[in-house]
Every structure is written in structure tokens, then in C-alpha cells.
């Protein structure tokens, strides 16, 4: 395990804030396993602009008020304060019947159409790397009203023209990386916002598919004082950094 690069905290903060800003008050938002940044983003959005957001997670809790954030997002610490518990099946059912507004998912590879690979690098039957698998994504991605992808790596092997194996495909709306926010427009990812510490040419170079990002591409506002203060309050142990290790 390597230690985070010096810029990791800035990137983690920017990503958490960017994810949170995409969330709307009153919507039902869900994340699954291995999702520290979405966990932080949901709590952040609730604290800032979306107090009525219903934050659901794979532990089956709703609107938890965790005293400390876990590194595993299936952890019982995510049950603290909840008034209800449901099973994984109940949550997937909700998405299946259109009752979840936004689902956070990730992919080891993400392609220009927003499809993800969580299954295998190399030939599927004899893979070079067997990946963890897509967990809920193949069922959630076509049924959730909106999918937000996130990935803490942004390089040409991660953001590719076409994934070698489609673990899941569906209603992807945005993709958030350490460098930018993509939006899917007419079926293809385009840079919607650059992050303040990056430049358009760096993003183009780090992306495995063509982009028209340039100096006119909008830049996301950096995390505000209020956002940073809320982040510090929610995640004092900087669990959000774990995805950068």
C-alpha cells in the first residue's frame, strides 16, 4: 500500500464536494459496497443544501448519523441513528421499480458511453486480472433514475474508449474523477467542469477517448469554506482519502 500523494487530500475534497453538489434536496440516493466518497458526499449534501435528501446505503439504513465513518461502507457504524433497516433485496427492489433517484457506482474501467468494467482485464475466460465484480451495478445501472459514477484514478487505462467487458451499462448521468466532472451528452461523456487545479490539456492527455475540453471549459468552484468545514466535521479522520491509497 502506498501513501497518498501530496495532492490527494485536495483531490478527495474536490471530489467529495463535486459529488455532493450533484445531489438534490429531497431525492433518494443510494450507494453500495466500497463507496467511501459517495458516503461522504451524501452526508455533506444533507448538511449543506439537501437536508431532506434520503440517504440510503447497502447496510440498509436511512439517514444515519455515524459518530465515525467506516472504511468499509457496509459497516455497522453506518447504522447509527437510523429509524429503519431494510435488506439489500429491498434496496435493489426499490431501484428496480424506479423508487431510487440517484445511485453511485464505480468501475475499474469506464468508457466513453459510461459503461463500466468491474469484472476482468484481459480475456474474460482467462483474465489477466480478475476484478471484484460489479456487485449491484448490472441491475442498478439500467433501473436507477440517475447514475453517478466516480473513480479516483484518471488515466488512459481507466477512462477508455470501450471497456473490454461490460459489467454494467445504463442511466449514467455524470462521472466524477480527481480531474473533472464528465456529463453524458447524447450518449458520450464530455467534460462539464474542470477542477481548479487541473488544465484542459492535462485532462485530455489523461483520458483514453477524445475530448473537446479547452480553455473555455467551465471550471468548478473550489471547495468553499462552508464545504470544507462541513467535510472536516463529517469526516475528521479523512476516511475519504482511503480511495487514494
Amino acid at each position: 500500500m502506498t501513501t497518498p500523494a501530496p495532492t490527494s487530500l485536495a483531490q478527495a475534497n474536490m471530489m467529495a464536494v463535486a459529488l455532493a453538489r450533484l445531489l438534490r434536496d429531497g431525492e433518494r440516493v443510494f450507494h453500495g459496497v466500497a463507496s467511501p466518497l459517495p458516503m461522504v458526499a451524501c452526508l455533506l449534501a444533507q448538511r449543506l443544501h439537501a437536508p431532506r435528501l434520503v440517504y440510503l446505503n447497502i447496510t440498509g439504513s436511512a439517514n444515519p448519523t455515524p459518530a465515525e465513518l467506516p472504511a468499509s461502507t457496509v459497516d455497522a457504524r453506518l447504522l447509527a441513528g437510523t429509524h429503519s433497516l431494510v435488506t439489500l433485496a429491498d434496496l435493489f427492489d426499490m431501484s428496480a421499480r424506479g423508487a431510487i433517484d440517484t445511485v453511485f457506482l464505480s468501475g475499474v474501467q469506464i468508457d466513453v458511453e459510461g459503461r463500466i468494467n468491474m469484472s476482468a482485464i484481459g480475456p474474460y475466460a482467462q483474465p489477466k486480472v480478475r476484478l471484484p465484480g460489479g456487485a449491484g451495478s448490472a441491475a442498478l445501472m439500467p433501473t436507477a433514475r440517475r447514475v453517478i459514477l466516480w473513480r479516483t484514478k484518471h488515466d488512459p487505462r481507466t477512462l477508455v474508449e470501450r471497456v473490454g467487458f461490460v459489467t454494467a451499462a445504463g442511466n449514467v448521468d455524470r462521472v466524477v474523477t480527481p480531474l473533472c466532472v464528465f456529463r453524458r451528452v447524447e450518449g458520450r461523456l464530455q467534460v462539464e467542469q474542470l477542477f481548479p487545479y487541473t488544465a484542459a490539456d492535462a485532462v485530455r492527455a489523461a483520458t483514453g477517448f477524445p475530448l473537446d475540453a479547452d480553455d473555455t471549459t467551465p471550471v468548478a468552484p473550489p471547495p468553499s469554506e462552508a464545504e470544507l468545514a462541513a467535510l472536516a466535521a463529517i469526516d475528521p479522520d479523512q476516511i475519504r482519502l482511503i480511495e487514494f491509497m
Partner: protein
Amino acid sequence: MLDKRVSLHEAVASIPDGAVLALGGNTLHRAPCAVVHELVRQGKRDLTLVKTASSYDTDLLCGAGCVSRAELAFVGFENVFGLAPRYRLAIETGRVKLREHACYSIITGLRAAVQGVPFMPIAGMVGSDVVAVSGFKTVQDPYSGQSLVAVQAIQPDVAVVHVQEADAEGNAVIYGTRFEDVLIAQAARRVILTCERVVPGEKLARQPELTAIPGYLVEAVVEAPRGAWPLSCAGEYGYDHAFLAAYVDAARGDEATYQSFIEQHILAPDAALAYAS
């Protein structure tokens, strides 16, 4: 009330080689690890594992050579330790044959078994290559003609679930998240329950709303304190970060290093005692 308590050894001895085995819990949490360790000790072979999201339990059973097939949707140590090294190796070398799923298709297959039907339609899955590689067929809604992915029933031979409390008859209370534990207990032909502690049935009778698994579905009850160790058990203990770090480290090493770790920590006669500490 029937007393279904048996020893860990006896319960695991009743699981035959070649069984389709569903394990409770999810990723780093409340898997029936005492049973998993005993499966390794008893040298079980040719198991088929069924679970939505798994970590150490699947990795160890694959690494110890107990598994030949798997129906799974996720195996990894989340962001805590990343990929599951021995599971990876088993799939990459072809020693374990994976039928990849989404968590929801595992759930749907279990539900079909629970409801006594050979298949069930599922929402989603469209656009995923998992449909083709795992051989999911489609079915037409006889009313609208709409085409849907159909999941075959998954009926485990044995479900193993670890809970916080159970009575001697197998009525089981799960505090915190139930994951798919109730579903696998309903779907399986046989249910083996391990629990942190056996409690008097009268306790459950006072609040039967808390009983997650009814005793009449359960064949055997094993009192196994710290039975989810090194994974977490809600309200009892967290996962054992140091042990899992050492495990993953060994699992990333060569075969000799890994087998030596298993020898020392799982197979050695006093290894089991260490878990209770």
C-alpha cells in the same frame, strides 16, 4: 422445544464435499467464519459458493482449495485491502469456475427457490455482458410481450449463517443489517446456524418480532463466540484489521508463504483457540 445444538466439528462434518454452500454476511461483515475455518480444517473439496458480496471467506476457501465453482457478484476487501488475492488467482488460473452475477440476480435466483418456481424475471441486467457469459436466458411477459432477463432458481444445499443470538431450537435474532441471511436460510435445503450466544427461548418469546430466522428452518445450532472473526459482527466486534492485513499480505505472497499462513493460523491445533481471544 427441540435442542439442536451440536459442536462446530459435527455441524461442518455434515456438509458433504461437492455441496452448494450459501454463506451469510456481506463483504467484511458477519460471515460465518468459524464454519469457514472448520471447512478448511476438514479439507472439504469441490464446494460451490453462493453469495452476493464476499471477502475473506471466499478468498480463504478458494486459497485452501475447497472450492470448484462460485456464483458471486463481488469479492474483495473493499477499500480496506483491495482485491481478494487468492480468489483472483483461483479464477485467473481456472481452478475455480465463476458464474458471475449481479447481487440482485443472486437474490432473484434465491427468491425463485424460496417461491418454488424454476425461474424468475429480473428488472435491469440489460446491456451487461454478464447476461451472455453467465448464460442468463430471456423470457417474455405473457401479458405485454415485454422481454426480460430470467434468472434460474438457486437452491443451496446448505446455508450457513452467523447471528448474534439464537435459542437452542434455532430461532435466530440478527441485530443490525440482515443482508441476504434470511433469504439463503429460506432457499437452502438445510440451514446451519452459528451464534455468538445461545439464549433462552423465553427471551425470543417476549419479542418474536426480532426473530429473523424461525427455528423450524434450522437443522443445527452451534454456539460460536466470535464466530464471524476476523470479520465484524454488529454490536459485538469490528473486523480484525491487523489479522486481515497479515492475511492479505500472505495471500499476495507465493504459495508457500500463503500455505504456511493457513497452517499456522487456521490448521494448527491451537489456532481455533486464538480466535476466542
